[in-house]
């Protein structure tokens, strides 16, 4: 088991959103305030870890032909639990994420990791994979939220800091580009982030190739 490699995989080299291009609907839809981003990220992290552990523990029992159906039932169970816990304890979050909490069932990250990792690896490795992939997802969500909020409204930490309004970094008279908080901004910000990631990965590959030449 290689914890360090799994950590790097989840956050950078095999990031679920920026490299594997999974779970993009929720990434674009809910990233309008930091509160949403952190809440959604942690919900997915918890569900992903639980599902990975259960699926990995049952991987020898599940018949191969109906494995997807079994995965979906397990995932739907955990999603329902998280949905009801959020409704009970953090109703504000549940309200602002709305339909996207139950939609975690069809979030490709979870079923993708179940199929690609948990169904083939030990319980401990799958749990770590869940945590790191979940962290990678959360980090991307937070970056998206920070960019869109800062440029769109000129605030930081909306929903959490300063009584929910967020801290106005450019003074209260700042006129933000409101358009970035609308659907247009979601597509554009994610597109630019993925482009940045591709640029970084290409540069690091070129650097490695150069070192090998020497």
């Amino acid at each position, binding site marked *: 088991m290689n914890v360090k490699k799994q950590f790097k995989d989840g956050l950078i080299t095999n990031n679920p959103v920026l490299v594997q*291009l999974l779970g*993009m*609907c*929720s990434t*674009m*839809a809910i990233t309008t305030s930091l509160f949403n981003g952190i809440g959604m990220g942690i919900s997915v992290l918890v569900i992903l870890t639980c599902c990975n552990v259960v699926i990995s523990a049952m991987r020898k029992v599940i018949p191969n032909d109906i494995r997807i*159906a079994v995965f*979906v*039932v397990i995932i*739907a*169970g955990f*999603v*329902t639990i998280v*949905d*009801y816990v959020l409704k009970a304890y953090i109703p504000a979050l549940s309200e602002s994420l*709305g*339909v996207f909490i*139950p*939609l975690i*069932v*069809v*979030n*490709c990250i979870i*079923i993708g990791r179940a199929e690609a990792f948990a169904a083939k690896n030990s319980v401990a490795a799958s749990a770590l994979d869940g945590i790191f992939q979940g962290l990678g997802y959360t980090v991307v969500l937070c970056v998206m939220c920070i960019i869109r909020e800062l440029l769109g409204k000129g605030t930081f930490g909306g929903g959490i800091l300063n009584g929910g309004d967020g801290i106005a970094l450019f003074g209260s008279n700042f006129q933000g580009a409101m*358009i970035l908080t*609308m*659907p*247009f*901004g*979601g*597509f*554009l910000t*994610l*597109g*630019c982030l*993925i*482009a*940045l990631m*591709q*640029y970084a990965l*290409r540069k690091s590959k070129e650097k490695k190739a150069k070192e090998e030449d020497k």
Partner: protein
Amino acid sequence: MGLLTSILSISLGAILINNFIFSQFLGCCPFLGCSSKVDTAVGMGLAVTFVMGLASAICSLINTYILVAETSIFGVDLSFLQTLTFILVIAALVQFVEMFLKKAIPSLYSALGIYLPLITTNCAVLGVVLLNVQNSYNFIESTVYGITGGLGFLLAIVLFASVRERVQFAEYPESFEGFPICLVTASLLALAFMGFSGMKIF
């Protein structure tokens, strides 16, 4: 509001104002994955429309008569099973559509290929069913919302595929190769669809 009025406003909302892709971000995966050619985009859009309409109708009935306590024939509150039931109904429905198409229209079946089973994990389908419950639509309204939502998806994916066929020949920075340029294109289309926001019949 009369039935006809509500149907009209639901349809207009689902197709243009609150388009599933450009304003609610539901169903982005097949939207981006399945839109490199206009032909496949049309096939995918039609299949999704069909499944969305059928799923809305069936799930609406199940929700009213089995899951919700007040109207249930069993008299028990089973609404905590909503997500689980809906996803299983959709999975079964997609399987059924797949078998039907294989027998009845083999040419469309082979054209859709891998994308057909993937409709199960299309968040637009589960999304429309959940939104029906959230907006407490009745049976007719749910079905209309499902079908028109699917038509909105069809419109979006066909428009996007046509633009994408042209983008292939354009020049753009190397880092934007593949997905990023698609997302930027989609953002511009979303901008166009923003023009519909605030439109109302009454």
